């Protein structure tokens, strides 16, 4: 089984929601990965749709890049509605 690639599994839990990562598994090909995912991750009706993606096809940001990637947003508090003064009398804004 060690020569079977690793697959990341994404499940759409409910109609209308986006697929969400739930875990991974080994399988020889995509079709088997879906079948296995169905058995491993949806035994209690957890989903309405499954995606599988080869783990090796995922490019991830490295943990060391966290600050340069995300810190610049910290100072941009004006991107949030709460930054603005809206008088109490004003409704629907």
């Amino acid at each position, binding site marked *: 089984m060690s020569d079977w690639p690793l697959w990341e599994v994404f499940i*759409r839990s409910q*109609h*209308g*929601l*986006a697929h969400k990562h739930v875990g991974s598994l080994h399988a020889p090909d995509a079709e088997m990965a879906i079948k296995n995912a169905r058995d491993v991750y949806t035994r209690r009706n957890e989903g309405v*749709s499954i995606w599988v993606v080869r783990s090796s096809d995922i*490019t991830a940001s*490295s943990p060391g890049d966290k600050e340069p990637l995300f810190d610049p947003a910290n100072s*941009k508090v*004006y*991107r*949030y*509605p709460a*930054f*603005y*003064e*809206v*008088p109490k*009398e*004003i*409704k*629907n*804004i």
Partner: protein
Amino acid sequence: MATAGIQTNPDEFQERIDAGIKIEPKDAMPDAYRKTLIRQISQHAHSEIVGQLPEGNWITRAPSLKRKAILLAKVQDEAGHGLYLYSAAETLGVTREQMIEDLLAGKAKYSSIFNYPTLTWADIGAIGWLVDGSAIINQIPICRCSYGPYARAMVRICKEETFHQRQGFEIMLTLSRGTAEQKAMAQDALNRWWWPSLMMHGPSDKDSKHSAQSMKWKIKLFSNDELRQKFVDQTVPQAEFLGLTIPDKELKWNPERGHYDFGQIDWDEFQNIVQGNGPCNQERLQARISAHRDGAWVREAAAAYAQKHPRGARRSA
């Protein structure tokens, strides 16, 4: 598109819609549903992109560094909205290139409001307050529309729009509490943006040709006139608070209806702009064409780099 050939039973499809089950990219769907959505989502995307231009006009001339940073952040959000929506449209089988080509060739539509000029700083306030305000009213119901990727894109967009409207209202509030000249500037901006904002909800129900089918398919959840009424009802008290006058002599609370009555919209003006004859149609399209042309070398350089350095090479090095 692989799924386009699948036979769709229109009754089964409608049952699914009626049951509130979302349609997803790989599901079978009637061709007309697909085409309507491609048209609507791509027009929506184009509106976000072209909508950056009138406000972009004031980024370098914002009255303070704070206002400049805010405006920059807002315009950046609009670019993001365009990108979410282009991606949602692509799930239906249309390519990004095709959509952009149609826009640049003048074949695709976008919201006609962006063909008006932004003459003063107060216009930035009026746009946030009224134009983003109208957009929010149109967009909130779409968060519940029948097509999954469109609905999900709209949830993200609506969350971000709140800040847009608030920053606009805050500009209007500041100006109307300012000098007589500043207050006059706010009034002038309201005078110019009020009617175009009412047009944003689309032609009146009796002239709206796509509405009935779109409502059946839950691509549209409220009629244009309903959305417009909602906008008027919630905006009039806000204008009163600002001490500004809405430029409509017929505007009046109707206690029987429980709504404001308002005057006739100049639909000839609307049609004229849709036909391409608004004050800035040429300028807007030209700006998009230049941006696309001037950015060509960046796209070429990125493609050349990707070819030289196969995927992941930089990371694992």
